[in-house]
């Protein structure tokens, strides 16, 4: 835990109930996120990588408090020393100590906040979604869309809204004559710019990027990536960049967290992960990237089979049924996410040293 941590996610779980029968009883859980620890430093971009259904979007939405996590804590902008103290109390053996810890956590944990305290935090946390066609209300003017976060919480005097919106549009590279138009009059890239302008409206500290370039054309994707990079440096923003596109993550992120089936299997600085992936899943993922260069022919690791069902994940290491290096221990014991070196690399694999 470093002093400049902005977002600190502790053992977060999000289960979706599966109901069945006449009375819709809960018969099972989809374990979309199953115990995730993740810390983001102020001003850094962490790429959250994984395949569909691995829980990366669910994790992002929990941090946004678009839904309430089943269990775990999300600390946003809290004093790291205090967070550490609370965590220690929560893990204590003494029940009185634990309940004191819970009482303290209730005032700090984003997952348990409500009402005004939550509204105040909402200003600092924003989101850019994948498909701007879907994330912009088709019946609203650009002015009203971008102003929404400001007017919803009455952050700006009504007469100042328009000038602030114009300022935001200029930041993302749109012009004042775009102000009174509907989203359908724009191209995909411009729509994503509008969505970015909306996310910047409340001067947030943290923006969740939920696959912001996946729905865009290749030539436009570069424009948006460069814009996001520039904004991050300019406004000292913290990004959680959720994507399945590894080269995009490589371009934009400082650190990477790889998710598989509701768990983080590896984290570390981007360049190190790309140079020396430790977890077998990360290796397969990286080797599977199609590289736009016909002359480099790399050895590919083709994984067999599909991602298992998150209702009933495999025992032990969740990756073992597809892992080419699985041994007996992988089938029985779940590997913890353990630090590899002092550089902040962690990996959840029993055998990373050997393979």
């Amino acid at each position: 835990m470093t002093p400049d941590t902005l977002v600190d996610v502790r053992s977060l779980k999000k289960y979706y109930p599966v109901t069945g029968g006449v009375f819709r009883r809960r018969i099972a859980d989809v374990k979309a996120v199953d115990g995730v620890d993740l810390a983001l430093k102020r001003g850094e971009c962490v790429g959250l990588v994984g395949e569909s259904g691995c829980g990366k979007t669910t994790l992002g939405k929990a941090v946004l408090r678009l839904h309430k996590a089943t269990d775990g804590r999300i600390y946003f902008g809290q004093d790291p020393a205090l967070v550490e103290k609370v965590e220690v109390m929560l893990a204590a053996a003494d029940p009185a100590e634990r309940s004191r810890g819970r009482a303290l956590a209730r005032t700090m944990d984003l997952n348990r906040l409500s009402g005004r305290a939550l509204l105040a935090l909402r200003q600092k946390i924003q989101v850019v979604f994948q498909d701007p066609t879907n994330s912009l209300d088709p019946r609203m003017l650009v002015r009203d869309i971008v102003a929404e976060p400001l007017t919803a919480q009455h952050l700006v005097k009504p007469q100042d809204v328009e000038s602030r919106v114009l300022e935001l549009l200029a930041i993302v590279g749109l012009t004042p004559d775009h102000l009174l138009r509907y989203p359908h009059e724009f191209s995909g890239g411009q729509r994503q710019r509008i969505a970015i302008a909306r996310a910047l409206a409340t001067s947030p500290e943290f923006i969740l990027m939920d696959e912001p370039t996946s729905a865009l054309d290749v030539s436009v994707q570069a424009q948006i990536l460069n814009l996001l990079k520039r904004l991050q440096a300019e406004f000292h923003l913290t990004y959680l960049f959720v994507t399945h596109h590894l080269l995009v993550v490589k371009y934009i992120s400082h650190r990477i967290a790889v998710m598989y089936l509701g768990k983080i299997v590896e984290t570390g600085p981007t360049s190190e992960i790309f140079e020396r992936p430790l977890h077998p899943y990360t290796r397969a993922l990286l080797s599977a990237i199609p590289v736009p260069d016909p002359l480099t022919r790399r050895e590919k690791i083709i994984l067999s089979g599909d991602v298992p069902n998150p209702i009933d994940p495999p025992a032990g290491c969740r990756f073992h049924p597809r892992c080419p290096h699985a041994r007996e221990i992988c089938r029985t014991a779940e590997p913890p996410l353990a630090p590899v070196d002092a550089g902040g690399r962690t990996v959840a694999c029993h055998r990373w040293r050997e393979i």
Partner: protein
Amino acid sequence: MKGRTMETSTDRRLSAAHPRLKELLFTLRRFLKNPLSVIGLSLVVIFGIIALLAPVLAPPKYPDPFRIPHTGFRIEPSPPSAAHPLGTMQQQYDMLYGLIWGTRSAFRIGVFVVAANLLIGIILGVLAGYFGGAWDEIIMRITDIFFAIPYLVMAMALVVAIGRGLKAVTIVLIITGWPSYTRVLRSDILVTRGRDFIQAARASGASHLRIMINHILPNAMYSVLILASLNIGTTILTAAALSFLGLGSETGTADWGQIISLCRNWIVGAPGNRFAYWYVVFIPGFVISLFVLGWNLMGDAVRDIFDPRMRRR
């Protein structure tokens, strides 16, 4: 080629206007481009004028203008003449007067019933669709019950229970009409609720009320509005059917269903002259058909315009 240049010049003129106005004009242009919608609109407008000018076109004779004047009590209808331009019905009620004031009744029933249905449907639909859970379960089971009983049978039973008369018919149509609106709106809200812009609004700290009014209703309303515009015609037909069955207004009220009910004994004339009383059946039937046709054409046009697949992107 010429058409396109003309259109671009209008576009250019429009682009100076406020975008909401532009949108409205665009919609209007689409509406007026379709000949059927223009016919529908003109029919409705003509009937509207008739209803408005009823006191001028047919000056009332009694304090209650909805009572049709009648000259004598002869059972047999008489054909059109100078005194009665469209003839008379059974008991010598004046057909023209009845039809003109009947237009007012038709508008009152059609527009009022549909507006009330829409209001109830929207309130319950929003409760069910946006808040879900127990609200959804209760409201949807009630609509299921309504859908399980044949519409006309239920309407008849309720009218009998409440008591005859135009007012009773109106109330019954309101009671029985809302479930389809609720259902349609609920499903549209469910679709809209899952879209990213709602999530974005929540992430911006918008309240439930704000999300509902600013985002959900404007995007989910269209199917219900289309349903309403198509339903005005149906509502009037149902009201007429109830009147025809003798459950509606009292004899001699200016109401189209009542008029047809008065004429039902004269549909077929005496042997040898089967079409002797053609006017008592044909004229009111034609008027009702035109009215319903007008609303239906307009409803179709509204649907075509608002249909998301037809809208420009």
